C-alpha cells in the first residue's frame, strides 16, 4: 500500500494526466450530444499536452536561456535549465488540436443544418427512418 502511495506521490503529474485523459475518453464514448463529445475530445488532447509539458520540467531549474553573456563562454550545466523541446513540440500540438476542433465544429454545424439536432440518438433514428 505504502509503495503504491509512494508511486502516486512521486509521479503525480502522470497520474493527473491519465485522470484528465480518461475524463475526455469517457466523454467521447459516453456522451450523446455531439458538442459535448467535441469538448471531451479537446480535454483528451489537452491531457497529452499536459503530459509533454510536465515531462520537460525539472526541479530548481530555470527557463532555457543561458545566463552568461555572449563573450564569456562557460560550461553549461544542463541541470540548471528546463528541457525546452517538449514545450516547443506542444506549440505544434496545440495548433493541431485547435485546427482539429475547428474542422470538427464546422462539420457539427453542417450536421445541425441537416438534421436540426445535435443529439446522436435522434440523428441515428432519423437515418433509420429514411432507410
Amino acid at each position, binding site marked *: 500500500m505504502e509503495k503504491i502511495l509512494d508511486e502516486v506521490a512521486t509521479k503525480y503529474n502522470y497520474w493527473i494526466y491519465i485522470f484528465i485523459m480518461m475524463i475526455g475518453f469517457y466523454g467521447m464514448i459516453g456522451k450523446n450530444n*455531439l458538442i459535448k463529445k467535441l469538448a471531451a475530445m479537446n480535454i483528451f488532447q489537452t491531457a*497529452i499536452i499536459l*503530459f509533454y509539458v510536465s*515531462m520537460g520540467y525539472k526541479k530548481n531549474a530555470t527557463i532555457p536561456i543561458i545566463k552568461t553573456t555572449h563573450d564569456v563562454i562557460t560550461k553549461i550545466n544542463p541541470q540548471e535549465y528546463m528541457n525546452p523541446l517538449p514545450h516547443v513540440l506542444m506549440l505544434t500540438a496545440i495548433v*493541431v488540436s485547435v485546427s*482539429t476542433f475547428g474542422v470538427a465544429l464546422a*462539420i457539427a454545424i453542417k*450536421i445541425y443544418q441537416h438534421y436540426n439536432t445535435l443529439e446522436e440518438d435522434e440523428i441515428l433514428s432519423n437515418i433509420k427512418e429514411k432507410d
Partner: protein
Amino acid sequence: METLYPALTVITPLIFAFVVGIVSWINKKICFWLALLSLIVAFISSLKILFYITTTSSIVQYKLGGWPPPIGIEYRIDWLNGLILPIISFVALLNLIASKRFMEKEFKEKESFFYILYLLFTTGLLGVVITGDLFNLYVLLEITSLTAYSMIAMGGTGRSYLASLNYLFLGVIGASFYLLGVGYVYIKTGSLNMVDVFRILPHIYNSETVLVGFIFCMVGVWIKMGLFPLHTWLPNAYTFSPISVSRIIAPLMTKVMIYVMIRVMFSVFGRWYVLGRLYGVNEFVVLLASCAIIVGGILALSQRDIRKVLCYIIVSEIGYMVGGAWLGNPNGLIGAILHILNDMLMTFCLFLAFGNVFYTRKKTKIEDLKGLFGEMPYTSAGLVLVGLSIIGIPPTCGFFSKWYLILGALQAKDHFFAVSLILSSLINVILFFRFFEVGLFSKASYKKEAPVSMIVPLFIVSLMLIVVGICSGSIVNKIINEFVLVALG
C-alpha cells in the same frame, strides 16, 4: 547525397496548395493545371530519388534547414519509402486527371477548395512517408487526416457529415495515442530522430516505459489504418464521400499507415525488440490479422451496396499486410511490402472502374450493374483485370504478394494465417463473379462509356497491374530485399 529532390517532393504540392488558393480568386480555370503541374514535379522528383537509390544503393538524406540530424529534422529515404513515394504521387496524379470532369460537374464553385485540400492531403502523405523524425511524422499525419475529414464531408449528404465526424473522433484518438507513444519513447531516449532512437533503444530494451510507448504507437497506428476490431470508422467514411475523394483516400491512407507501422517496428524499435523482447506478441497480432481477413471477407459478402463491398475488401486487405509484417520472417515482410505497392494500385484501379460506373449510372447497388459489359466495355475490361488481381491470378500483381505472404506463413508455421489468405481468395472469387454475373448476363440497351479522361487513367493503372506483376521479381530483388536485409538481418 546532397540534393534538393526530397524537399522538392514535399514542398511543391504544399506551396502550390497556397498558390491555387490565391489564384482561385482570379481565375478558376487554371487551378486544375497548377495542381497537375505540382503533382507532376512531385512524381518526377520522387522517381529521381528512387532511381538514385537503386543505382548507387545508398540512402538519400536531406537535412531541413541545414541542421544535422539528431537536432534538426531529417528526411531520410531508403529502399522502403523510396519505393512507396513514386506510387503515392503517381496515384495522386492519375486521380487528379480522372477527377477533373467529376469535380467540374459536382462542385461548380467549390472546385478550387477541393484542389487545395487535395494537394495538402498529398503533401501530408508524401511527408509521412519521407520523414525520418517521429514528431514530424505526427504533424504530417494530422495534416493528412484533417484534409481527409474535410474532403469526406464534401460528400454533402447528412451521412457524409456524420461519417466524417465519426472518422474525426477515432482519428484523433489514434493520432493522440501515437503522440503519447512518441512521448514515452522521448522520455527514455531524449531523441525524436528515428535513426538516433534506433541506436539508443537497445540499451534500454527492458524498460517498461519503452514497452508502453511501443504499445501506444502500435494501437494508434492500428486505429488509423482500420485493423479489424478498430475498423468501424472506415466503411462509412469511404462510402459516403464523393467518389473522387474516396478514390484517393482509400488506396493511400490505410497503406501509408501500414508503412508507418513497418517503419516504427523495424527502423525505430528494431527486430530484436519486436520479435525478441516481445516474443509471442507477434503470434497474437497475426491471429488478429487473420480474423481481419476472414471477417472483412464475410462482411463484404453480406453487403448490397458496391461501395460498402469495396470498403470491406480493404478491411480484409489490411489484414494481409499487418499479418505479413508481424510474421517475423523475410518472406512475410517482403510479401507485406510488395502488397503495400500492389494494393495501392489494385484499390485505386477498383475505385477508378467503379467510379466510372457511378459517374455514368449514378447508382451504387450491385443489381444496378445490369448490362455493364455491353454498355461500358473499357471500364468492364479494367474491372475484370483488377478482379483477377485481387483474387490472385498469376500474371497480375496480386498473385505475387500473396505468394510471398503464404510462403512466409508456412515458414512461420502459422497455418491459420495461410488458410485465411487462401479463404480470402475464394471469397474474392465469389464477390467478383457476382459483379461479373450481373454485368455480363444481361443485355445492354445502348452504349454509353465514361469520358476519355476517366478511361485513360483506368487503362494506365490496369496496365500497371500486369507490368508490376511481371516485374515483381526485380522489384523484390533490387529494392524490397535490400530493406528486408537491413530490417531482419
